[in-house]
């Protein structure tokens, strides 16, 4: 019985020592980041015809917005910065229209770090709509969000006869499911300590038996 218990404790200890670090190395930290658009500050259009072949049939829109990034962790979070931080997609009433993102990027890897709490930033996105001379966003439903490695809360823009109805998302301040590995060292300690106690009790029992 004691031998079985001893083997059990040792195996548990070894497994914990081998598997847990590997898990930590693979999983790492949860990002804890949430992004939202707090305000759309400007929507402009331009009849850009710099490229005579390409832009001639398009209207270019540019949306500027205030974004907020909530870092719910108690330390800085660093992530790879996306080329295009503000994204938009659209579903037009006129199905012949399509939206193309002015998605430009660089070949360099950049990182961005967010302190605990809320970081506010001004971002912009440009997109082409395949119709010339548009003076306002075409009727339809648009979705706008700040790209991030974490939870991206959406802002929706509904356009009907040129009238915009914007719905912003709010942060949910419920605590996140934090990955807590602090239980691991106590677990190993309890396992080993229990083993020591069991062996000690066994030895004591033998000595008591002999004395009797």
């Amino acid at each position, binding site marked *: 019985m004691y031998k079985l218990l001893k083997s059990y404790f040792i195996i548990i200890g070894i497994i914990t020592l081998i598997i847990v670090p590997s898990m930590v190395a693979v999983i790492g930290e949860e990002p804890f980041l949430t992004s939202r658009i707090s305000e759309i500050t400007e929507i402009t259009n331009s009849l850009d015809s710099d490229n005579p072949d390409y832009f001639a049939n398009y209207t270019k829109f540019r949306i500027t917005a205030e974004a907020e990034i909530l870092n719910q962790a108690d330390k800085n979070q660093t992530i790879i910065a996306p080329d295009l931080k503000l994204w938009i997609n659209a579903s037009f009433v006129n199905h012949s229209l399509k939206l193309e993102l002015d998605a430009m990027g660089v*070949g360099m890897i950049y990182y961005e770090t967010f302190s605990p709490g809320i970081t506010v930033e001004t971002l912009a996105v440009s997109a082409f709509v395949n119709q010339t001379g548009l003076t306002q966003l075409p009727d339809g439903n648009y979705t706008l969000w700040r790209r991030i490695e974490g939870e991206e809360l959406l802002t929706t823009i509904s356009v009907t006869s040129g009238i915009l109805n914007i719905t912003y998302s709010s942060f949910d301040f419920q605590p996140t499911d934090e990955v807590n590995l602090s239980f691991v060292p106590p677990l190993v300690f309890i396992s080993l300590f229990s083993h020591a106690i069991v062996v000690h009790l066994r030895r004591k029992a033998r000595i008591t038996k002999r004395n009797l």
Partner: protein
Amino acid sequence: MKLKKIIALLIIMIIELSAISGVYIILPKELMLGQIGSAVPNPSVNVGDLQDKAYTYTGADIVVHDYEIHIDDYVTIVVIDDGLTSTEWKALEQNPEANVDIVGFLTETSSGSIKYITSPNDDYLDDQIVHEHGFAVISMIAAVARDVEVIFVDLDYLGFDPYGFEYGEYKIWDWINTNQAAKDIDIISWSMHHYVDFKTSSILQKWTSLKNKGVIMLTGAGKYGNYLNVDRGISYKYQSYYTDWYAIGSIDHETRSYGSTKNQRSWFSPWYESYTTGNHIINWLEPGNGVPALVDAYYDSSQSCYRGTWKYSEGTSISTPYLAAIISLIITGYHAGIGSSTDPSLQKVIDILQYASSRSSFDQKMGYGYVDAYMAYGRAYTEGRLAR
């Protein structure tokens, strides 16, 4: 006795536990970063004398430092990028470790006219909002192609700048094509990418014309580490995918840490087609994972010069100017061999690059491997001698 053994075992386990607690703080993020973003130690040796492994890997140190080969007056590289401030321009020309000669800054005014600036003191440069990437890219050229002439083409990055060309503008190609001979343009290096396919018949015509004039056009392959450089469903493959461009990926010049193996494609380096017809492929790789590049231009009053800080950077943004710098050495070597400023043909340059490639066969993800600068320079000189 047994209790002692158990106590000993317990102590050993606790020591192991303390080692594991060290593992807790080594997270994938840090493993992936490696030295990225950290300052290059002893830059006068590692960059000035090219002793960093990023340079010794290709033999650039032998050509540039040991043989003291600087680029002659008949090689010009066009760099298309996000912006360049007055301070950055001066830093690239005065930096003590390595520098280039920026001969012009091409941009488009808000009214749509073309402006060519030849002095870093021009007030127009003060309004640059988006920059830094261009600074880092040109510094990579400076490290290997010392004194080379550079023309900077300024893009308006996502509409943030008050001036600059739109990404897919025809005017850029019209100007470069028109001025190619007068400015002696040999190489175009573009470390950016776009989702929209701006290729038109008029742009294609200019690209073909430039190729016919012997200009080699290099582009960064991207940074999303997958087929066609896709990020969230959109493929950033303009201009990498197109026949006229040679797409450059990144190779790891050393085993750095998580996901990095020496002589293998870097984790972020994308790839294109598996067949070579049409050149919709990755052509070559050059080091791009942990290569010194300049950041944060400033005036150093102690040395009375403008300069920047060398930091380890990553991306095909670095691999592309690296190859552009090696091609500058090829052209300079050919000039030295032939004894005049006669340029090698584009096909001759390609042949030399293939000769000095680390792979003899094409691989979809690695192209023809990396180009060895020492082999390329030697071959170029020989070809020049043979052409005398």
